[in-house]
């Protein structure tokens, strides 16, 4: 029984989750130009909000998902408004902002485990048998299918917003050069907060999907942000299209790599790839050489 189609399916599923994270991560990185750890905690916040609304209060699933995304986005906006905006006014270096984002990350993660204990929770109760689909011998559940479609949709809509709308042009201007865009009258602070909001919504969504597919626990954030960052570097940091491509490349390399080497080396593949790209092609596939 040939397992290649199953490996391809696994890679696509992993790739689409990484894609959502990478899209959000890149959007935020593009505007702020530093490695931000906060989105990791936002993924957990998204997942836990849905868990609280759907599992604990039993509200409608679609409402809880939308609420989860908005709450994650709000926390992203809040972190920019209270901390990063101040740091930008101090002209703080991006290493200072990195350490600050690390502080917020640790704090949010600790608060979640205080509120929800550090138990592992599965969001979708699986009593009813999950409907699985079969394509060319590769099986996947409707949740995984939904993740794949949403990540494609998120990518397309984001690409359209950036290209067509005036908001999109302003976002690209700020990503290129914050000072210049200040001069030509863009209220960069407000815009960056909006970018934070959208980026955090995307990452919150990825946290929610991980919750549906696998489950959530407070310490899920660190690995998510590292995978997201790796995918963005491979694709081209700050470049939204690059992040999307890098995510699927990472998914494929990770899953096909396992064929050759034993499973326990799986995280080594992702970080090995990260180091290789950092040294030989730091600007990633999509960006031109800086």
């Amino acid at each position: 029984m040939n397992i290649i189609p199953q490996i391809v399916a696994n890679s696509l599923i992993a790739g689409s989750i990484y894609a959502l994270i990478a899209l959000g991560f890149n959007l935020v990185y593009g505007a702020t130009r530093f490695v931000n750890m906060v989105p990791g905690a936002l993924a957990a916040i998204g997942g836990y909000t849905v868990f609280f609304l759907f599992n604990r209060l039993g509200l409608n699933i679609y409402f809880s998902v939308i609420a989860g995304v908005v709450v994650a986005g709000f926390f992203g906006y809040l972190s920019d408004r209270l901390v990063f905006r101040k740091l930008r006014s101090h002209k703080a270096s991006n290493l200072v902002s990195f350490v600050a984002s690390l502080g917020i990350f640790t704090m949010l993660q600790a608060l979640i485990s205080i509120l929800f204990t550090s138990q592992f929770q599965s969001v979708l109760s699986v009593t009813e048998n999950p409907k699985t689909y079969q394509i060319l011998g590769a099986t996947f559940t409707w949740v995984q299918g939904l993740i794949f479609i949403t990540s494609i949709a998120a990518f397309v809509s984001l690409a359209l917003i950036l290209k067509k709308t005036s908001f999109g042009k302003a976002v690209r201007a700020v990503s290129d050069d914050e000072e210049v865009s200040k001069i030509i009258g863009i209220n960069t602070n407000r815009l960056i907060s909006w970018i934070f909001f959208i980026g955090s919504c995307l990452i919150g969504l990825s946290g929610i999907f991980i919750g549906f597919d696998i489950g959530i626990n407070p310490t899920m954030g660190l690995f998510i942000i590292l995978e997201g960052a790796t995918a963005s570097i491979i694709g081209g940091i700050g470049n939204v299209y690059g992040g999307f491509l890098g995510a699927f490349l990472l998914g494929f390399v990770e899953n096909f790599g396992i064929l050759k080497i034993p499973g326990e080396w799986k995280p080594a593949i992702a970080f090995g790839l990260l180091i290789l790209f950092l040294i030989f092609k730091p600007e990633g596939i999509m960006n031109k050489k800086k």
Partner: protein
Amino acid sequence: MAYLIHLLILFAIYGILGLSLNLVMGYTGLLSVTHGAFFGIGAYATAILMTHAGLNFFVALIVGLVLSGVVSFIIGAILSRLSGDYFVLGTVGLNYLIVTVLINWSDLTRGPLGIAGIHKPHFFGLSFSDTPAFLVLSLIFLALTFLVARFVVNSSFGRALKAIREDQKALQVFGYNIFSYKLAIFTISGALAAIAGALFASYITFINPASFDVMQSVFILAVVVLGGLGSLRGSLLGALLLVIIPELLRFVGFPSEIAAQTRQAIYGLLLVVLMLYRPQGLIGEYKL
């Protein structure tokens, strides 16, 4: 009182780690999140040499020092090419890689089972098995590390490091091969961290890969950032505060189930407040 001695031993270990990281971060301006791995390499080198090869602690320490120096040379060679955000991400990636190697190379490191039964150091009949004696030994090593660090910092090499921190591009033009300087400071800092690793392995008598992961590197980073970048005494201060104060929280009667999480939350808040109001740390001079 034995508990305070125990904490002071940990202070000495984290003081050595803080000093060695400050050389790379405070003086050369490289934000490295891989120091936990150097700490681990030193611990594992000593533990393996003492348990498998039955070497005396001090011999194992020296061999461990050299081994970690070689590994940090290789890592330095890889990382010194990167700069800014890429450097930070590169160090995080390498830390993960090294921990994965420690977990999976099970015939050398016994993988997740860790290495147990590492006995205390003894030196021609003089045994350091009880904690006060071990504290004296650790403080001696801390003093040695401090002197080495001060020697390096006050030398012309140290001044060049600060210049790399300030303006690497300009310094090149005046005849400095930046790559070899970064490589040298990485090796020195890695070797010094190995001392802390050896002390940790022999004091706790059991090590496993989990205690040398990215979170450990973040803790060491916090020690340096809190104490102050570019100030050796600052790293000692940072180590003292971040080892002692969390233990105080054990006595503040938090209900036991949230005591540990509140510590994490306060520690995260500390980082944020520091970065907002005092990025150069308590008694540091260099703003990151």
